């Protein structure tokens, strides 16, 4: 049972509104899983539920067979790192201090040790943000900010890395860099789960694609199975074509 994040009969609600109903799902470490779906499909809620931030209305989330709600917040946070959509940076902190916040679940009441400092530097380098370490985080551009936030979640050395739209608002170059960082972590054994809106990017980086619409899973499988025109038409109401070129898969959007 090692390396599995599962949802069993997972029902999630925001207020009284039911977002997901009775979802069964099993995710594996070492894979990049991309969650796709129209706006309001429940992607963000599913991520929040999988990392224990949104309590299930019914059903449960199991981490290696253990009920997630039975873990202490710190124990959960040591194993599952989460990058929220449009992450807030409230104070003009130095980037290194901001990235160091990723160590919070590991350090308890003590301060950062030399080992923590080494991990923080490694995370900065891995996310391509080493040159930003001494900058004031409030002065970063969108792309720089995304790299720093990824470094922050990498610094927690989680088994699972869940990120809500980590590539939104980035230029193509920054998107590729950030995506490659996440894929590398998956190859190193981390379970990476992302929500995306870019279908071609999803086709290129995902080992597995989940298409979510109206609170249900429409498709679950490798990109060439999940990103077929029929599924995308039902999920997004658009006509598409899935092509395989020399650079890999791509999804062309043909119209409504």
């Amino acid at each position: 049972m090692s390396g599995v994040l599962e949802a069993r009969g997972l029902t999630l609600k925001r207020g009284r509104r039911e977002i997901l109903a009775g979802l069964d799902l099993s995710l594996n470490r070492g894979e990049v899983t991309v969650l796709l779906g129209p706006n309001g499909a429940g992607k963000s809620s599913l991520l929040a539920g999988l990392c224990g931030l949104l309590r299930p209305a019914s059903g449960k989330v199991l981490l290696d067979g253990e009920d997630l709600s039975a873990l202490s917040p710190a124990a959960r946070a040591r194993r599952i790192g989460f990058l929220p959509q449009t992450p807030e940076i409230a104070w003009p902190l130095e980037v290194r201090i901001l990235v160091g916040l990723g160590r919070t679940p590991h350090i308890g009441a003590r301060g950062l040790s030399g080992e923590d400092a080494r991990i923080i530097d490694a995370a900065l380098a891995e996310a391509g943000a080493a040159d930003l370490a001494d900058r004031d985080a409030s002065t970063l551009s969108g792309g720089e900010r995304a790299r720093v936030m990824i470094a922050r979640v990498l610094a927690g050395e989680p088994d699972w890395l869940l990120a809500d739209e980590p590539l939104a608002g980035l230029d193509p170059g920054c998107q590729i860099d950030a995506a490659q960082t996440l894929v590398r972590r998956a190859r190193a054994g981390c379970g990476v789960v992302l929500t995306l809106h870019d279908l071609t990017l999803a086709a290129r980086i995902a080992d597995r694609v989940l298409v979510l619409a109206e609170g249900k899973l429409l498709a679950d499988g490798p990109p060439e199975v999940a990103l077929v025109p029929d599924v995308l038409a039902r999920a997004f109401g658009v006509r598409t074509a899935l092509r395989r070129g020399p650079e890999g898969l791509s999804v062309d959007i043909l119209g409504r």
Partner: protein
Amino acid sequence: MTRRRIVIAGLAGLVLVLAAASLILGRTSLPLADMLAHPEDPLWAVLVQLRLPRTLLALLIGAGLGLSGAALQGFTRNPLADPGVLGVSSCAALGAVLTLSLPFAFPLLQPLAAMAGALAGVGLLLALSGGAGSMTVFLLAGVVLNTIAGAGVALALSLAPTPWAVNGIIDWLMGSLADRSLEDVAFAGPFILVGLGLLVLTGRALDALTLGESGAASLGIDLSRTRALLAAGTALAVGAGVAVAGVIGFAGLVTPHLLRPLVGARPSGLLWPSALGGAAIVLAGDLAVRLTPSAAEVRLGVAMACLGGPFFLFLLLSLRRRMA
């Protein structure tokens, strides 16, 4: 880190100097050398009975205001947060004032009521600001609390049974440290110290909250525990202060702002320096009202408001410029 230590050492030195000045200086300046030679000198009574409680209360209350201001600003990610601005102090005053219309009284009634008022105020504030609590909702909640507490106090004033009660109410509204006793210190001190201890425990959570509530929760921070620590700590530190000295505003607002450029913006790094800075500001303010040559001593709460009002305006203007 070293820079922060230098600032803390400097602030501690400043607090010591101001505390010494507060003991010696006043309408009657104390000739310390003569007094040391004559242990039976009646001036010792001035030092021990009048100056010492005043100095200790300024230290404790200032530290409570500075630390709760820094913690509230960290928790709300809002640089305008302060127990005075957000109505916590007014709620404490209302709690104390309401006891005047009760048909019974016991020795600790008023201070306990002040702390209960502060707890109700800060609890309501945090409840209103939870979840989608934007800066706007939070400040509006503060306006509402200040309005409700103000109305309650005005009602108590107009219904006050005796002129003596009116004077008592005015004492709470315009804080002062004049004529306080060692009993006041013995009463408020432990509550304020416990409050400070609770507030300091929030440091790591406040740092994580830099990333917003979901960011902090994803880092394993228990936000309801943080909220409870903050509410209890602020209620004790501010409520006990208001109970013995009345409302002293703006120290909690001003102190973290003055210190951020010196020690950095990390909320946990700002807590101890703000406690020291708040103590220094209240000590300095109390010295200033004592040494100002006027017929009657200006009340400390009034003097702080005179300084704090323009500072608040300046802060608002600079925020507006940054948001533009």
